């Protein structure tokens, strides 16, 4: 049995210390301490309302957009305290791509969906440069072969699985370090899910990935580490194979095996 605590860590990409989140008077997250390693997939699991999506949204400060939401504690990405007043939030979000449950391409062409981020962040010096970014991003997202002859077609004309890969291409076009994925396959059929899962396996060679999922099998298949959340607390965090073969905490065991906890 491997022990997560005894492993010599790679340099932690993300470190959260005593993170608390309140929505008005209601505390949604309690003292979350988590270290996420670089170029690994970390899965967040737990019942609806347990705080896993709230946590993932802390990592790119999306909670800033929610009225009455207060985030306390420290979140370090590399050496940067992301909640520091000195942190440039636009630059931060360029470093952290996000993919949501429902594919949400812009009502624009496939090309423009991917080119949007590099344009607003000024990442392309020329049209040729932008073409290269779009091509590279679509290739990395495993979509290039399916769309190379119709880049002018609307992103909305693609299938659900293709739209989700387009959103991944859009996220990686701004050259992030981290990809946050909030239930990225929950609206997809098993084949489209398998394609996205295979893609995530390839993407982790370049990016640190944090994924929220309700599928135990998906967490087991994809991630190196898994964190189980319950009622705003992180109950257990361990190597994924330990979590799914022999969890230490009874609450984790009850949740992953569908028992009355």
């Amino acid at each position: 049995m491997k022990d997560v605590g005894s492993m010599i860590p790679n340099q932690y990409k993300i470190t959260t210390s005593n993170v608390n989140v309140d929505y008005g008077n209601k505390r949604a997250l309690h003292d979350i301490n988590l270290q996420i390693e670089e170029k690994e997939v970390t899965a967040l699991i737990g019942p609806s309302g347990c705080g896993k999506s709230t946590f993932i949204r802390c990592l790119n400060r999306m909670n800033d957009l929610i009225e009455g939401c207060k985030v306390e504690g420290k979140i370090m990405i590399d050496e940067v305290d992301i909640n520091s007043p000195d942190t440039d939030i636009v630059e931060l979000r360029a470093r952290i791509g996000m993919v949501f449950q429902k594919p949400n391409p812009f009502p624009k062409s496939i090309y423009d969906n991917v080119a949007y981020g590099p344009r607003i962040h000024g990442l392309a010096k020329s049209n040729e440069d932008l073409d290269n970014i779009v091509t590279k991003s679509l290739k990395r997202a495993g979509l290039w072969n399916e769309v190379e002859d119709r880049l002018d077609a609307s992103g909305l004309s693609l299938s659900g699985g293709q739209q989700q890969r387009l959103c991944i291409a859009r996220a990686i076009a701004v050259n992030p370090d981290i990809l946050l994925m909030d239930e990225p396959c929950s609206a997809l059929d098993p084949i489209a899910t398998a394609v996205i899962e295979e893609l995530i396996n390839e993407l982790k060679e370049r990016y640190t990935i944090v994924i929220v999922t309700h599928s135990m099998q998906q967490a087991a298949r994809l991630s190196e580490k898994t964190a189980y959340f319950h009622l705003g607390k992180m109950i257990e965090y361990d190597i994924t194979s330990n979590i799914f073969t022999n969890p230490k905490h009874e609450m984790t065991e009850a949740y992953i095996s569908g028992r009355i906890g």
Partner: protein
Amino acid sequence: MTEHINSAFDTGLKEVNKQIAKLGALAETQLDDSLTALKEKNIQKFESIINRDKSLDKITADVSSSVFELLALWSPIAYDLRSLLVADRVGAILERIGDYSKNIARRSQVIVTEENFDRLPVNIIGLGQHVQDLLHKSLDAYMELNIDKAMNIWESDIDTDRLYLSIFKEILSYMSENPDDAKMLTHLIFISKNLERVGDYTTSIAKQTYFLIEGTVPQTKRPKAMTTF
């Protein structure tokens, strides 16, 4: 362990455990009957042991089939997964114990019909009773999920080895003095080896019980005595 929210998996698992309990009881009966029949030279009993082995094979196949179906339908994890894997392995072990009992019955048939057979020259029944006790206790440990009982079995295999070795030596010595009885004595060596193997299998049930409860295999090495010389 609390019940599942969706009770269908629990129903399936209970059915598998019921089949294992039935298989365990049959394996115990087969072993007991094979020893009793040898002791009593009961020819009819030998036949019924040999015929009854098919029902152990059938139940074992049913257990495997149920486990396969539950794995495919429910994709169980953690304790649930171990429950099914262990049930399948214990089923296979009990089926093998049934095979050894049948083999004892077959060899005993030959022994008791030998013209010069009068009584067993070694205490093979004693070894059999020791192994019967281990089988009963190992099944109790598994059914009760009792890790202490399981570890006691795990550590007691050395006693089986010693008993077997002592009988083996006795038979060899007897054989050199009574070469005319070589056929019967060779069968007795095989019977005692079968019993020693049943003893080994009881430690396998104990090991599986430990794995089921703890999710790991016992860290201590199983104590063994030398069984050949």
